[in-house]
């Protein structure tokens, strides 16, 4: 085993491990076959498993996700790729109306064990229609599980859990993390959905982050350490199930909370998280909660503008500083 693996390689590795283990796991999506995916996240799958199990589709987002649903209802475990998460809007009916509701509205008769994978988020200068962090869209829909790993090992472990899940999972792979490297995942590595990770322990403030914001929060924590502010960083890893237990546990120690979100403040997951804290953990707090989130604008193109909109370590540091002085 190589001693490091990239996030992008981890995606293909995670899928391949499950395809080797279970013949009912199949993939479909645009350019995912011989081309290996536009982000090179499916490299090698077509060669190993052939075009019956790794199917190139036309540009038909509704048909991709709708067909994945039909296959999932009839004994397969499909992994559908929607190239950029922005394009989820083209098949939003399936994410909002069909997949998450069919089990419920049939009184439990039908199971939909599928994964919709998609490249999420900004940071690469792709402009407003190819850069959105859209995990909040899915977060508004009861019936979808939502995974958003931040490290290569988590990609593999959470991919295993997502594919084995009998429930539908939307799996957000972050474009800005594809080139990052990390330790490889051991064989049979599984990270159960709904378990946040405390990725840095600290006593003064809890930073809760997701996907691309995890390294931002960690960078901020290192800088705060130089000012003797000891930040605990939680990688949420999943939005559904949401690990509020770990967050409340951390607050019992630090009594200060900052969420770090790439998505726009308006309607962001941090809003739900802090409402749970307000309901159930108010007594744990010694200061107001703060949300560092993206500005409520479409994502601009230029680096300088993008940086203005998406949270940076600087913005997190400034916010935490104010909060610790409270």
């Amino acid at each position: 085993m190589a001693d490091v693996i990239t996030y992008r390689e981890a995606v293909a590795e995670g899928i391949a491990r499950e395809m080797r283990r279970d013949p009912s796991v199949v993939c479909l999506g645009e350019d995912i076959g011989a081309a290996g995916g536009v982000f090179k996240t499916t490299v090698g799958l077509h060669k190993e498993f052939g075009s019956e199990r790794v199917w190139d589709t036309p540009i038909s987002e509704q048909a991709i996700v709708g067909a994945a649903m039909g296959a999932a209802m009839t004994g397969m475990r499909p992994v559908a790729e929607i190239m950029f998460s922005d394009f989820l809007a083209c098949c939003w009916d399936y994410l909002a109306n069909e997949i998450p509701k069919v089990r419920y509205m049939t009184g439990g008769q039908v199971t939909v064990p599928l994964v919709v994978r998609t490249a999420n988020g900004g940071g690469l200068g792709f402009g407003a229609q190819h850069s959105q962090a859209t995990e909040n869209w899915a977060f508004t829909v009861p019936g979808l599980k939502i995974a958003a790993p931040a490290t290569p090992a988590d990609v593999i472990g959470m991919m295993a859990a997502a594919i084995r899940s009998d429930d539908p999972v939307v799996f957000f792979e972050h474009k800005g993390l594809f080139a990052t490297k990390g330790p490889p995942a051991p064989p049979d590595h599984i990270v159960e959905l709904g378990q946040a990770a405390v990725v840095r322990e600290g006593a003064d403030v809890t930073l809760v982050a997701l996907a691309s914001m995890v390294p931002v929060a960690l960078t901020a924590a290192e800088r705060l350490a130089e000012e003797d502010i000891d930040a605990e960083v939680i990688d949420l890893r999943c939005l559904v199930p949401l690990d509020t237990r770990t967050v409340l546990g951390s607050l019992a120690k630090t009594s200060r909370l900052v969420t770090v979100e790439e998505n726009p403040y308006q309607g962001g997951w941090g809003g739900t998280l802090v409402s749970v804290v307000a309901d159930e953990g108010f007594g744990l707090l010694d200061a107001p909660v703060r949300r560092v989130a993206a500005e409520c604008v479409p994502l601009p193109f230029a680096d300088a503008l993008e940086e203005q909109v998406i949270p940076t370590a600087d913005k997190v540091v400034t916010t935490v500083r104010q909060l610790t002085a409270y």
Partner: protein
Amino acid sequence: MTGAASTNATNAGQLLALYEQMAVIRRTEKAAHDLFLAGLVKGTTHLASGHEAIAVGASAALRDDDYVFATYRGHHHALARGATPEECLAELMSRATGLCKAKGGSMHLTKASHNMLGSYAIVGAHLPMAVGAAWSARLRGTGQIAVAFFGDGATNIGAFHEALNLAAVWKLPVLFVCENNLYMEYTPIGDVTAVANPAADRAPAYGIPGEIVDGNDVVLVQEAVARLADRARAGDGPSLLEAQTYRHFGHSRTDPATYRPAEEVERWLKHDPLDLARGRLAELGVPEEAVTEADARATDLVQQAVEAAKQAPAADPREALTDVWADGGAAWRT
């Protein structure tokens, strides 16, 4: 025409059985209508009275384990694929014994144990699902096919076109059956569609067969579906069948359908699927008495179903918080 289909179609006993199924569906929907007026059915219903021959003819041509996907106008498909009048009516009446534990209602009748995989209220959404089910059947090598029933209005939805193309390029065993009842909700399909036959005329664009059949003639429907199903099972790919029909009622409960010309309604009511089947039975020498008996059995069955559904316990409010996830629960957080 396949041997099997023509034998079935001309077999008096089989045709009588199909007639009886249609009679059960007609009466179940009449009961739904009456129960709605009596305040015992909430929400809305989209009755398929007039469309029975499509569901029954197609089902007779399919294998029991083939997959079926339907729309909010799907009572007939649920019943034709094995749901009982009692469980359907109980569902409409919000009873615990309902087909979907009263979580689905009229628009979502589903009988998964019989591979009737649901009724979908978003126009056209289920066509790609049928494609996926057909893909899955092929991967598993089961020889099953998938059938999607939908309205003429659905042919102008993107999912229809995406599904047809995907099924065609993958040569999947799927059959798209359009129930062309001439109207969407209140607008004639012809007013908003560039071709005369909204389904069949589109088939050539996808390189698949597009056929038209009299959807009120159960025998012709059975023959057509048997032939196209054979084709799909043989690996020759999908096809599109446009079954011409008419709905006896308005679009849904609130629609008196006053927009339809009287002579058009009259002409179609004279072309009733049950009457047509009765005519065919007479031609085959089936005594009228046998048909009357079938009618009486259908009436009894539905009457009992109504009574049983009325007696059944109301939906358990605790059920509202189950069945979101595969573990039976609904928890979204730890």
